[in-house]
């Protein structure tokens, strides 16, 4: 059955007699871990609602749980953080063939290069600051209000995350990767503690923020969200591999971002713990590429990923810095 027919059947099953008409279905060209399709729902009262269908791909960089993403998004409704409103879930793919969810489509577009693109410098600096503040606001959300949607990471979320991504590495690797084994050992030996777990987005970047003009309208892609150490997100955005996405040379440097984050939240950032999360960010990126390579070799994905030399270099440098920090 073609996608449009599947979607119509799924929407009918989810809404009953008052099902809307589906139109304008087309695939978006972004999203490496999910397939995103936009469409419009015309409700019986004439109202037109812009929606997005998110589906698991056959293979890719990251395997995530649509039901968990749906539950997180539902828990974030009304939080004011700009998470999209979700409507329907096909958790096991009985209607859509693959696990899928439908959510509201907010106005705006993703701009991967918003901080270093075509915009005037003052506007780019303001956006960079606002992205930092948005991330900090996610960390300020009341975790208790999320209910029991997300598992407790325990007293050492760093060790929990390292364990989870090492498990993915072992599952997907077909060859020995001594670089990654070295990283696993080094990270395991120095995992920092975390006094108060927060909601971690885990893939925070301008490419996951919707901008309508120069106004932030939504924060997308919550599929990796979990409870953990806020420094995980800060380590992700300050890792050397993502410099161009988050920093502006001479105007918004790493130290500026960290200082602004700390001031906004009224917290201190431990440099040794942040160095650990920087190293972990490179490790996680390399593991995603191992998974991407496995998908390609299994024939589940047509994009050829591999642990890129640039990523391995960044990881080994970060492991060296970690060693120096903890020496």
């Amino acid at each position, binding site marked *: 059955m073609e996608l449009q027919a599947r979607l119509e059947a799924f929407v009918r099953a989810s809404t009953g007699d008052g099902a809307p008409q589906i139109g304008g279905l087309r695939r978006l060209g972004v999203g490496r871990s999910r397939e995103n399709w936009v469409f419009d729902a015309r409700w019986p009262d004439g109202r037109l609602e812009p929606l997005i269908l998110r589906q698991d791909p056959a293979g890719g960089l990251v395997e995530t749980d649509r039901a968990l993403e749906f539950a997180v998004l539902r828990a974030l409704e009304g939080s004011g953080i700009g998470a999209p409103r979700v409507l329907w879930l096909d958790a096991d793919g009985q209607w859509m063939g693959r696990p899928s969810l439908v959510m509201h489509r907010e106005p705006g577009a993703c701009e991967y290069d918003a901080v270093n693109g075509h915009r005037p410098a003052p506007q780019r600096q303001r956006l960079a600051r606002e992205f930092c503040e948005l991330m900090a606001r996610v960390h300020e959300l009341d975790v208790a209000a999320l209910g029991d949607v997300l598992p407790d990471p325990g007293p050492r979320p760093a060790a929990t995350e390292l364990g989870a991504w090492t498990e993915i590495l072992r599952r997907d690797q077909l060859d*020995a990767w001594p670089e990654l084994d*070295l990283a696993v050992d080094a990270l395991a030996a120095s995992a920092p503690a975390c006094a108060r777990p927060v909601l971690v987005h885990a893939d925070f970047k301008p490419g996951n923020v919707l901008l309508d003009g120069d106004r932030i309208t939504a924060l997308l892609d919550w599929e990796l969200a979990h409870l953990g150490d806020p420094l995980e997100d800060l380590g992700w955005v300050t890792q050397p591999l993502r410099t161009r996405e988050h920093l502006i040379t001479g105007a918004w440097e790493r130290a500026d971002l960290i200082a602004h984050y700390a001031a906004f939240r009224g917290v201190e950032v431990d440099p040794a713990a942040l160095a650990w999360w920087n190293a972990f960010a490179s490790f996680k990126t390399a593991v995603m590429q191992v998974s991407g*390579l496995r998908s390609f070799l299994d024939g589940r994905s047509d994009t050829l990923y591999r642990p890129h030399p640039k990523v391995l270099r960044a990881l080994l440098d970060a492991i060296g810095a970690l060693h120096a920090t903890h020496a």
Partner: protein
Amino acid sequence: MRPTPEDVLDGADRLLRAVLEENALPADAADTVTDAVRMIKQARRAVAGRPAFLAEDNNRMRALLADLVHDLPAGSASRGRVRAYLAERAAADPG
């Protein structure tokens, strides 16, 4: 080290065959894609004859090194030397 040349060629072959199957291409374009599929087949045959022991040797060394790093004491000079060697190797990889 994966992906091998065979893996890459198989992936390219898969993509081109998908284009031929899924898209209603103009006849000229379909002929060109078909030629490309044939060239990939020839390249696949050509690389199949390269000395297998090189790849096997590389894989064995990588596996031994991966085992070794776990045995080295944390913070030891040996571990630092292994890290520096791997960093050099990654820097020399054309990607």
